[in-house]
């Protein structure tokens, strides 16, 4: 009896120290951040903006009533010498406790991206609650104005971005990159980062194109067509391609799937050569003029597609080498085959002068419902 009493007493004492007492927080006390953006401030060096949903707007209005709020989110800004200082200014502007556990997107302004993204993302990456799968994007617009926009679907910006990238068919229009993957690429040093670009278009967000980086700083951008070509090289499964056959004839493909094999050789004189072989397949989704595609024409189309994709890829790689940006990860191939030499070279001196030979093979996988 005494033993049981002592055990019960001990349990009560332990429960009184149960850690939930310190860390308990009501959900209504949380300001759940949907998106966070980083920009350069006017007076100080770091500007942070946090998109917070308006409480009560996440539930649809009761039938017969109207939504009270025109927009479902608002932005709070803060500026400071450090990201933390800026964040505390944001914190002082809301009644709730800013909660990062459900962030869907992190947006960097172009000005910030042209600095060092590793430094910018260090602050947000140290928060244990931030989901590692948070999308990271770049904008050339003012991020405050961009995110303040009430998009046509009236979705929270973070949800809009998250839903966008959940659709597989959109991932070749702007290559998505999660926060953990950005950090991984930055640490690896045998590949350069790339971020999808978000901008305002037709009272909505347009997510297309890619910002490319060299040693953690933005050095250039690729348009949507170049992004799709980059997706081809990196391996895609739902890409798009339009093939003009002459001034009036064209064939367009979707479900472009590509598999890439890259071989590297280093000559005795130190010349680095990459042989990039791509196997691309696609399904015909448009044929102008509309016609049945015969076997003979299939061969011609495939040859033309091989030529076109080879030309696009070569042009893209030339551009990337000119920018000294290696988002494809050719450095990784060098490191795997020549690990001892890798430790002694500066990849960003070797990469721009490397020779890259491209070979493509294209085949039509399907023609849709029509022949």
């Amino acid at each position, binding site marked *: 009896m005494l033993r049981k009493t002592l055990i019960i007493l001990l349990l009560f004492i332990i429960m009184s*120290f149960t850690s939930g007492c*310190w*860390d308990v927080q009501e959900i209504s006390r949380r300001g759940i951040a949907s998106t966070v953006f980083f920009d350069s401030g006017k007076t100080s060096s770091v500007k942070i903006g946090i998109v917070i949903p308006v409480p009560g707007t996440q539930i649809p209005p009761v039938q017969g009533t109207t939504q009270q709020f025109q927009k479902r989110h608002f932005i709070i800004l803060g500026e400071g010498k450090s990201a933390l200082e800026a964040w505390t200014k944001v914190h002082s502007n809301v009644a709730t406790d800013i909660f990062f556990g459900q962030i869907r997107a992190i947006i960097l302004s172009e000005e910030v991206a042209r600095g060092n993204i590793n430094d910018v993302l260090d602050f947000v990456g140290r928060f244990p609650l931030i989901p590692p*799968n948070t999308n990271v994007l770049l904008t050339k617009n003012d991020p405050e104005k961009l995110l303040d926009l009430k998009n046509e679907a009236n979705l929270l910006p973070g949800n809009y971005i998250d839903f966008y990238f959940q659709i597989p068919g959109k991932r070749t229009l702007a290559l998505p990159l999660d926060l*953990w*993957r950005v*950090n*991984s690429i930055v640490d*690896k040093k045998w590949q350069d980062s790339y971020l999808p670009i978000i901008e305002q278009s037709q009272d909505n967000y347009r997510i297309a194109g890619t910002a490319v980086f060299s040693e953690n700083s933005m050095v250039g951008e690729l348009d949507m067509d170049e992004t799709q070509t980059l997706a081809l090289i990196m391996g895609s499964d739902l890409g798009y391609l339009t093939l003009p056959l002459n001034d009036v004839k064209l064939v367009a493909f979707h479900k472009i799937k590509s598999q890439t094999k890259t071989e590297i050789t280093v000559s005795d004189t130190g010349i680095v050569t990459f042989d990039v072989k791509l196997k691309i397949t696609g399904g015909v989704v448009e044929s102008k003029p509309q016609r049945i595609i015969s076997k003979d024409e299939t061969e011609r189309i495939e040859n033309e597609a091989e030529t076109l994709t080879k030309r696009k890829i070569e042009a893209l790689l030339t551009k990337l080498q000119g920018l000294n940006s290696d988002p494809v990860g050719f450095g990784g191939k060098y490191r*795997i085959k020549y690990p001892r030499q890798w430790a002694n070279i500066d990849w960003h001196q070797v990469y721009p002068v490397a020779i890259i030979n491209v070979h493509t093979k294209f085949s039509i996988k399907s023609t849709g419902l029509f022949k």
Partner: protein
Amino acid sequence: MLKEKTGIGPGLLFMILYATLFSLGVMQSPYVAAEYIGNNGYWGLVLAFVLTVGLIILLNSLGRKFPKKSIIQYLPVVCGTFLGKILGLIYLTFIFAILILSSNMTALQSGTYFLFRTPSWAIFLLYLGVLTYIAHQGIEGITRLAAFIFPVTFILSLMAIGFSFQSFELDNIRPIFFIDGLKIPLGAVQLFYPFFPLITVLMIYPYLTEKRKGFKTILGATTLAFFMILATIISGIGNYSAPGVLRYSWPVIEVTRKANLPFILQSFGLFFTVSWLTLTLTGLGFLYYILAEGIAQLLGVLNYKWFTLILFPIIYSGMILLTEIIEVRYIFSFFRVSGFVFTIGFLLFVWLLAVIRRRGGKKDAA
């Protein structure tokens, strides 16, 4: 020694060894592999496992020489009374060090991810209370607890580690067969630490009911823990690459946290953390029991139940002393090497002395 009413069978031994080895070994292993070896750091664990097989042979051999005695009891027989007691104390100090460091890191990890505002002393107090309760149950209670939690925790851990391969890139773990000087053997020394708890077998060998199955059981549990930890290292490096792993304080939590099945399960991180914490508390409770039982045998007074209470403030003080994560990492790096030297050296020394002095066998079985 407090005599248990029954012994423990091979199954129970398997469960407790697996729980202890996996839980204490998994959390920092990708970090250590990446830091000391690099992208093919998994070879360090493979080499460490090969060494461990030899260790298990030694353990089993010593156990069979003294089937009814724990190491604290037969050390004076092998080495002489005074030296035997000193070595026994050193052995228990090593167990104490594993307990302090592991429980400290577990509490710090909880503080980082879940309990931001809870003071460290409260987390230490809570965890130590749980360990004390578990240790108080004795060897049979602890092993039955391990057997009870094994199915669920194993399945959840396996699923979490399996799904963590979601974004695995083969290039990150290549070149696979690259040998860069002595990095792999030296890395194997660093990666031997998951197998430190095997040394506790020397204390519980007398309780085994089927001693002839001892070697297979210990090897089986170690092999399962080895494969799980190996998969975690390969997943960690394969996802982040070796330089990428080094960014994180808790890379295993991160690699399971980012495993994300949309619309089905948002993140596996929490499931893995819960499983791991359950296994860790069981494993640490086991170590606490070993320490209490060892002290009782060494001093020849009271029993382990008393010592689970007597040791409480001492262990708590040890945990409180190390509250800075950077300090803990620093000490841990030295502990891994010294622990390797001690584990192999201590066992070899005792075994050789037993062989040379012809101690053990039938006359020492009673």
